């Protein structure tokens, strides 16, 4: 349990903060509190943390080497991630769903182009009802366009 929550103690807060400052400055390497004090365990934890991660600074040569490796990685990943044809033209990769929508759209376009209602072979007779298939095709087209729009709106 975190007993410090129940017992606010600004004096101990200050003491521990000062102890941490001294440890990090390198002027303290052993607990400062008497064995009976409950700060002792916390001071030991600070010493443990400090000795496991001794203060180090990256020298210039290491920084430069790491920079070179970072640039090499960026170059490598930049080459690996060249945008595909689809990404280049449509601003997004083609998912299987979007591919299917394109395929359905292509089929419907072919159907529309080859539909008898669009081929002016016979002059229209007065009173003839319009071909039901052309209505279905238009509804289908609208549906497909809606699907494509929906997928492109999604991330």
């Amino acid at each position, binding site marked *: *349990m*975190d*007993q*410090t*929550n129940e017992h*606010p103690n*600004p004096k*101990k*807060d*200050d003491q*521990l*903060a000062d102890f*941490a*400052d001294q440890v*990090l400055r390198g002027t303290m390497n052993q607990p400062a509190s008497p064995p009976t004090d409950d700060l002792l*365990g*916390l001071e*030991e*934890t*600070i010493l*443990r*943390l*400090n*000795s*496991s*991660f001794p*203060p*180090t*600074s*990256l020298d210039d040569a290491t*920084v430069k080497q*790491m*920079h070179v*490796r*970072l640039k090499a*990685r*960026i170059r490598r*990943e930049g080459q690996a991630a060249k945008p595909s044809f689809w990404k280049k033209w449509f601003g997004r990769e083609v998912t299987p769903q979007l591919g299917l929508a394109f395929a359905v759209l292509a089929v419907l376009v072919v159907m529309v182009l080859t539909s008898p209602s669009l081929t002016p072979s016979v002059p229209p007779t007065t009173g003839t009802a319009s071909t039901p298939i052309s209505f279905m095709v238009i509804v289908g087209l609208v549906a497909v366009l809606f699907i494509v729009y929906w997928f492109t709106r999604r991330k």
Partner: protein
Amino acid sequence: MENTSNPILQDPSDELLVQHFKDGRQEAFDLLYSRHLPKVYKRVRYIVPENDVEDVTQEIFIAALNSISSFRGEAKFSTWLRTLTNYKVAEFYRKRTRKQEPPLAPLSDASAHTTGSTSKIMEERVYLQGALQSLPDNYREIILLRFAEDLQFNEIAELTSQNLEATKSLFRRAIAALRNHLDK
């Protein structure tokens, strides 16, 4: 055009460097990198296994490079980069969990390539990393700000918009929580 050939001023602010980079001056990012690498590296070293520290650090800077255009200067660049660092470290652990790898390398891994006292330090480090990782965010953050970034308590108070007393109190609670985790 003339602007881009001017040398960058001596010791420009981070925000000015970001602006230079947005204006197409690649070397501005190099300066930001050199300036912030030590702190980012140190922070990552406290919470990520030794073998992955450089990799995660690289990912942080690649993410910074890719999203720097979204930096609008509402916060300090160092604060923005710290948030990005925490995000990428969290992502690192998410990926590890997804791959069913243990959150931190087992102690045996730490001693596999080392001997004697180095091995003991590495084991202790892995143990502490595990404990730090399991702390609540605000506890972990104050420990990292003081130990990894070497910020003074008054600087931490300013950064977290708290008074000095509250900051020191949080620090004591954080160390107490760390101790509890280490004792488990």
